[in-house]
C-alpha cells in the first residue's frame, strides 16, 4: 500500500491540530459552531459541533441520532417478508439495495437459492439503485460547493432510472420487491431495450458531470488535498465503499465475496484512487457509476430464462441459526446479522450500515480544516441520514 505525499501531510496536520486543541481547551477561547441538526449542508439532521479558531476548526465532533427510528427493534416484531418494507427506508436513495442483504441472509439461513433469472434481475435492480443514488450525489456535490446547476441535471437524468425501477417494481423510491427465494414479479415487456437506452443516457450524464465539475479548476482547488484519509486510518475507522477505495484500498464486496448476486459473471473493474482526498472519493464514485451502467448492460444481455421464484413455503419460518451477509451498497458495506430462533420473525437483527462507520472518521478528519472544507468533506464522504441513524 503506497502512502502518497498528501496522506503524509494529513498525519502532520492532525498532530498539529492535536497540539492546538490542547492549548485551545486550556485557554477556553474561540467559538463553537453548531452545524446542524438543521443546516443545508447536512441534508438531514446530522449535527456537527465544531470549535473554531477564526475560520479554522480545532476540534470537532458529530452528534447523530436525531432521526433514529429504531429499525433493529422494529424488525423483531415483524415477520421476515415484512422486514423489507422497513429496511427500504434506511438508505432512501438506493432503496432496493437495502433489501438485498437481508433477503440473502434469510435465504442463507433457510438454505434456499434463488433461480438464476431472479439472481440476475436482483443484481440489475441492485446496480440501478446504485446509479440512482450516486447520480444524485454527483449533482449534490455541486450544490455543496456552490454550483447549483449540476443538481438539476442530476435530478433530470435520475428520473429515467427511477422510471425504469418503477416500471418493474411499481415504486419509485421504496420498491419492496425482493422476496425470500426470488422476486415478486418478472420484468415487463420491452424493459430491457429501454434500460439500455437509459444506461447510455447515464453514461452521457457522467461525461457531462466530468466536464462540468471534475474538469473545473475551482472544483479541483476545493477538493484536492482536502480531507485526506490515509489508508490505515480508513481501515481503523471501518470505512467502506468509495471512501475506502478513494484511500487506495482495493476492496469491493461485489468482487471479493460471493453472496449470490451475479456480479462475478460479468466483466467490470474496481476503481481506486491513491490520494485519499475529497477529489479521490468523488472521482471513484463517478467511475463506479460508469461501471454500474456497464454491469447492467451486460446483465441485460445475458439474462437467463426460467422461473423467478424458488419453491418457498407459504408461511416462512426460518430455522434456528445465525447469519451475517454484507453487500457492497451504494454507500459502502451494508450487512445484516440475523439471529433466528425458528419463528416467523427474526429474534434479533443487527444492521451494519455504511454511513454510520463512514461519518465516524469525521472528528479525526475535521481537525485543522477551514469551515468551507467541512462542507466539502461532508459532501465527499457522502452519507444518507437514514443510513446513519436507522
Amino acid at each position, binding site marked *: 500500500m503506497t502512502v502518497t505525499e498528501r496522506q503524509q501531510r494529513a498525519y502532520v496536520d492532525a498532530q498539529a491540530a492535536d497540539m492546538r486543541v490542547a492549548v485551545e481547551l486550556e485557554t477556553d477561547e474561540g*467559538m463553537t*459552531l453548531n452545524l446542524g441538526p438543521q*443546516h*443545508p*449542508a447536512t441534508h438531514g439532521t446530522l449535527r456537527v459541533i465544531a470549535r473554531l479558531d477564526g*475560520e479554522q476548526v480545532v476540534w470537532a465532533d458529530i452528534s447523530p441520532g436525531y432521526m433514529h427510528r429504531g429499525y433493529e427493534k422494529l424488525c423483531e416484531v415483524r415477520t421476515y417478508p415484512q422486514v423489507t418494507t422497513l429496511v427500504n427506508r434506511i438508505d432512501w436513495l438506493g432503496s432496493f439495495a437495502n433489501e438485498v442483504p437481508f433477503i440473502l441472509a434469510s435465504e442463507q439461513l433457510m438454505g434456499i437459492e434463488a433461480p438464476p433469472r431472479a439472481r440476475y434481475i436482483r443484481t440489475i435492480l441492485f446496480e440501478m439503485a446504485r446509479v440512482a443514488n450516486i447520480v444524485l450525489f454527483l449533482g449534490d456535490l*455541486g*450544490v*455543496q*460547493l*456552490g*454550483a*447549483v*446547476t449540476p443538481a*438539476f*441535471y442530476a435530478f*433530470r437524468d435520475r428520473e429515467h432510472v427511477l422510471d425504469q425501477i418503477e416500471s418493474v417494481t411499481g415504486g419509485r423510491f421504496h420498491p419492496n420487491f425482493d422476496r425470500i427465494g426470488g422476486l415478486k414479479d418478472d420484468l415487463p415487456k420491452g424493459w430491457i431495450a429501454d434500460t439500455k437506452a437509459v444506461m447510455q443516457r447515464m453514461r452521457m450524464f457522467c461525461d457531462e458531470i466530468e466536464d*462540468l*465539475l471534475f474538469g*473545473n479548476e*475551482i*472544483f479541483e*482547488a*476545493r477538493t484536492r488535498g482536502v480531507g485526506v484519509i490515509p489508508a490505515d486510518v480508513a481501515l481503523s475507522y471501518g470505512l467502506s465503499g468509495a471512501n475506502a477505495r478513494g484511500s487506495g484500498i482495493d476492496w469491493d464486496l461485489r468482487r471479493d465475496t460471493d453472496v449470490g448476486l451475479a456480479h462475478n459473471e460479468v466483466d467490470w473493474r474496481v476503481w481506486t484512487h491513491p490520494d485519499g482526498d475529497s477529489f479521490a472519493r468523488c472521482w471513484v464514485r463517478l467511475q463506479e457509476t460508469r461501471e454500474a451502467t456497464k454491469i447492467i448492460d451486460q446483465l441485460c444481455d445475458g439474462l437467463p430464462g426460467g422461473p423467478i421464484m424458488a419453491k418457498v413455503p407459504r408461511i416462512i419460518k426460518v430455522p434456528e441459526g445465525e447469519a451475517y451477509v454484507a453487500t457492497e451498497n451504494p454507500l459502502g458495506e451494508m450487512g445484516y446479522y440475523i439471529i433466528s430462533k425458528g419463528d416467523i420473525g427474526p429474534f434479533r437483527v443487527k444492521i451494519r450500515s455504511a454511513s454510520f462507520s463512514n461519518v465516524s472518521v469525521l472528528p479525526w478528519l475535521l481537525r485543522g480544516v*477551514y*469551515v*468551507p*472544507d*467541512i*462542507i466539502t468533506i461532508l459532501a465527499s464522504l457522502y452519507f444518507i441520514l437514514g443510513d446513519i441513524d436507522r
Partner: protein
Amino acid sequence: MSTLTTLAADIELAWWQQTTLRSLGVMIAVLIPAGTLVYVFLFKMMSFMQSRLGPMEAGPYGSLQLLAEVGKFIQKEDIIPWRADRKLFAFAPYVVIASVFMIYLVVPFGPDAYFVDFDTGIFWALAVSSVSVLGILIAGWSSANKYSLLGGLRAAGQLIAYELPMVLAVVGVVIQAGTLNMQGIVAAQAEGEIFGFGGIGNPFVLTQGIGFLIFLIAMQAELTQTPFDMPIAESELVSGYMTEYSGLRFLLFFIGEFASAGAFAAVAATLFLGGWAIPGVDLDADWMNVVGPLVLVAKMMLVAFLVFWVRFTYPRFREDQLQQLAWKILIPLSLVNILATMALKVAF
C-alpha cells in the same frame, strides 16, 4: 446648444420640483435594471441553463412574478432576533441600498441625461461602492448569529481585497482617457481611434482587454456572486449575513444585490464598452438623451450576462484561495497593465 437643454433652461423649475424629478429618476434607474436582471437572468436564464422553465404562472411567461415576490416579502413577518442589536439590525439594509443609489448618481445616460456630472466621477463611483461593505458588516455583527458574523467578516475581507484590483483596472482606463469624468471617458471612447481607424471609436475593451477582465473578476467578487459568494455561501453559512433577515428587510438586501449588479454593469459598460454613445453618431444630438439610456442598458445587460453566466456555472472558491487570487494574480497583473498602458500612452 441642443434644443433640450435650451428647453430645460427656458422652464425654470423650483428646487423641490427638480429634487422630486431627480429622486424619481434615481428610483427608476435603480429599480428597473434590478428588476430586469432578476427576471431575465435569475428567473429565466438560470432556469433555461438548468433545463427547467422557471416561473410561468404569474402573468404571461411569468413576467409578473416579480410583483408577486415583492407582495410576498411585504406580507412576511419582520423578525428581529431576541439578542440582536435592534437599531443596527434595522439600519443595515438601508446602508447597502444607499451605496447603490450613490453609484448611479455619476453614471451618464446621455449627453444631458445624468444626475450629477462630477469631474472625478469614476473616483466617486468606486469610493461609494465600498460603502455597502459597512452595511454588510453591520448586518453580520448585529444579527447575533455566528453564521451571520462569519459571513459579515468574510464579506469585509473579500470586498477590501477586491477593491484594489478594481481600482487598478480602472486606472488604465483613466490614463488612456485622460480624465476621471464619466462623460469625458465616454467621449474619449467615442472619438478615439485604434491605429488610425476611428470607425467604431475606441471602446476601451479593445485596448484595455486585461483591465476589462480584471474589472469583471473584481466586480464578481464585489457583488458576492459565485464563485466569490462566500459571504452568503448558502451551503456553508446558511445565508451568511442575511441569515436572520426576513420580510421587507430581506427584500432590501435582495434589491441591493441586484441593483448593485446593475450599477456595476453600468459602470463597466461606461468604462469599457463605450457607455451610452453609438459609434459614428454625433455625441451632442438631442435624441441621444432618449436612445442613450437604451444603448447603455443594452450594454449593461451584456456585462450582466457574463456575470450571471459565471454565477450559474462555477462552484465557489474557498476564502484563502480567493485572497490568493486577488493578491497574487490580479493585483500584479493590473500593475503590469498600468505600466504597459503608461508606456504605450507615452509612445503613441
